[in-house]
């Protein structure tokens, strides 16, 4: 099987879907000509392949980029636009939250908005909190959107292809930390459905629910704990909205124990939603308190020791798991 970084997997998905459907176009700041013309990056080579009509470099105008997507989607195209970094979502948020997510509803179901907003997320690049700030909890709280956060290159490819074909607005969040670590991706064409979570590692003692790059942290912790005889079951959500409650609840029914792991700040993070769902619908299975492992409630710091301190790690997860075993 080919091994790709997530950026390359995204690139393949874009390329395949653009070949398949002439209504798919991409737009964003530097999606064509880039200051980082690296083959590991998501839009590499697409301008050369598809030309400037379908690969549109835009001005630095996040609201206009998102508005372009909303208008063009309603008019029958399938825009895939990029908001460069998650914190800049703020600038596009009116278009996404008040328009992409609501205009169909307010039309009484007459209009559709088949658009994808791709965003890069994640700390670890010394770029500071105006570039690194995971805000998936914002979009996952907004009816009318689907929210996808893949944790592997293979999922990224299959989910992005599904997102582009979806008739709803999809927020697709890529973790930059996954761009550069090649992992297996099937050669043949495939779609990964939006919705279902995946058990990335089966186990019996404790359920870890996670998504995006924290999947890797969970896998590391699980391997180490396995050596101590603790079998961790890892539920990779992949999709935050719609949320696959069934898989989460089935896992907790089996293990009786839940740890939620996410990179976003602890308080108000989407981990709370997982906790609430389990406490509502899986309470009788619970044998121990919840633990959440997440970033502390601070902006992402820049200084290397502090940024490292910020990002949740396997040791913290292992500690949390042991506390409730």
């Amino acid at each position, binding site marked *: 099987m080919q091994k790709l970084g997530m950026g390359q997997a995204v690139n393949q998905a874009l390329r395949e879907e653009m070949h398949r459907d002439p209504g798919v176009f991409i737009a964003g700041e530097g999606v064509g000509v880039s200051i980082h013309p690296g083959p590991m990056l998501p839009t590499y080579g697409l301008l050369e392949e598809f030309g400037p009509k379908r690969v549109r470099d835009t001005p630095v105008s996040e*609201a*206009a980029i998102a*508005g372009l997507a909303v*208008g*063009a989607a309603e008019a029958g195209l399938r825009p895939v636009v990029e908001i460069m970094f998650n914190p800049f979502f703020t600038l596009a948020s009116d278009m996404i939250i008040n328009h992409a997510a609501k205009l169909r509803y*307010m*039309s*009484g179901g007459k209009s559709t908005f088949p658009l994808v907003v791709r965003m890069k997320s994640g700390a670890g690049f010394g770029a500071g909190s105006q570039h690194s700030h995971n805000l998936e909890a914002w979009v996952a709280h907004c009816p009318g959107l689907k929210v996808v956060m893949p944790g592997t290159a293979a999922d990224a490819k299959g989910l992005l292809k599904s997102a582009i074909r979806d008739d*709803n607005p999809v927020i697709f969040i890529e973790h930059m930390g996954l761009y550069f670590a090649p992992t297996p991706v099937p050669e043949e064409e495939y779609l990964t459905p939006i919705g279902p979570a995946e058990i990335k590692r089966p186990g019996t003692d404790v359920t870890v629910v996670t998504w995006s790059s924290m999947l890797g942290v969970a896998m590391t912790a699980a391997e180490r704990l396995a050596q101590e005889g603790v079998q961790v079951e890892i539920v990779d959500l992949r999709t935050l909205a719609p949320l696959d409650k069934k898989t989460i609840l089935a896992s907790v029914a089996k293990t009786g124990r839940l740890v939620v792991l996410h990179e976003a700040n602890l308080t108000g993070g989407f981990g709370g939603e997982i906790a609430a769902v389990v406490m509502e619908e899986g309470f009788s299975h619970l044998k121990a308190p919840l633990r959440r492992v997440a970033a502390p409630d601070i902006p992402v710091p820049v200084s290397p020791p502090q940024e490292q301190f910020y990002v949740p790690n396997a040791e913290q997860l292992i500690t949390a798991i042991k506390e409730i075993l």
Partner: protein
Amino acid sequence: MAISAEKKKEMLWTMILSRRFEDELMELCKIEGKIHGMMILATGQEAVGSGACAALAPEDVIITNHRSHNHLLAKGADAKALMAEIFCKATGCNKGKSGTLHLAVPEVNAPCTSTVVGAGPPIAAGQAFAQQYKREKRVTLCFFGDGAAAEGSVHEAMNLAGLWRLPLIFICENNVYAGAQRLEEHTPVADLVSRAAGYAMPGVIVDGNDALAVYEAVATAKKRALAGEGPSFIECKTYRLRGHGEADPQLYQPKDEISAWQEKCPIPRLRDTLVSEGVITAADFQAMEKQAQSMVEEAVRFAEDSPYPSPEEALEDVLV
């Protein structure tokens, strides 16, 4: 520019119809519980929507804002479906999910209304982009207010449209007020068209109470757009004869200013022109008023007789 008699009559008709439609709404608002939400009317500004839409073809797209009734009627929206929607009834054009403020009428290429001030232009840029992308021979026209011109999104859209030469017509409906703030309280310039040069697009000021002038400006802009020359900016100087919404006592609008503009009301103005040109007779005008009256009556009857949507249907139409 020679405007056909038919077009002239169309403009007069949609102005008469929307005035009657909105006057009726104002009356209905006084009846407790009839109509839900804020009622925002375009009384006195009808020449803008009616003049502009007359210059468009059915396949051209408009994006409108909170003050939308005239724009939509002028674009050909069905009065009954609109009225039922304004009543929030199940038979409304959006099943009661939009109400008066967010009317979406894709069947006449008025696909959405945003009440977020300034949100129309970026969406309109997307529509115009799609038209260009698909090499269609149609254009998009976006209505926004003088107040909206202060929103950053409007500028982002103007820059994008200018850059990509999108087939887009920006119509700034300058009715002197943004809420209770007069133009000079929300911008330092007298003419918002002064912004057009900053995006390499032509800008013109037209008398927004003269439907024929609006028509001509839009027709010119449309020709330009279809020729691939890009967007245009048209500032229509007009006036909001009523308060911002039905509950606004207009304390901040000088009484003599209101009455001076009442004198300039666009409907008698176009009527007189058309009568003097021999395009219509005084009797034709009365007939049109009568027809508008009966259409609105019918629309109200239809709306009143229609059921509300069920509560549970609120759960539908979120996702495809």
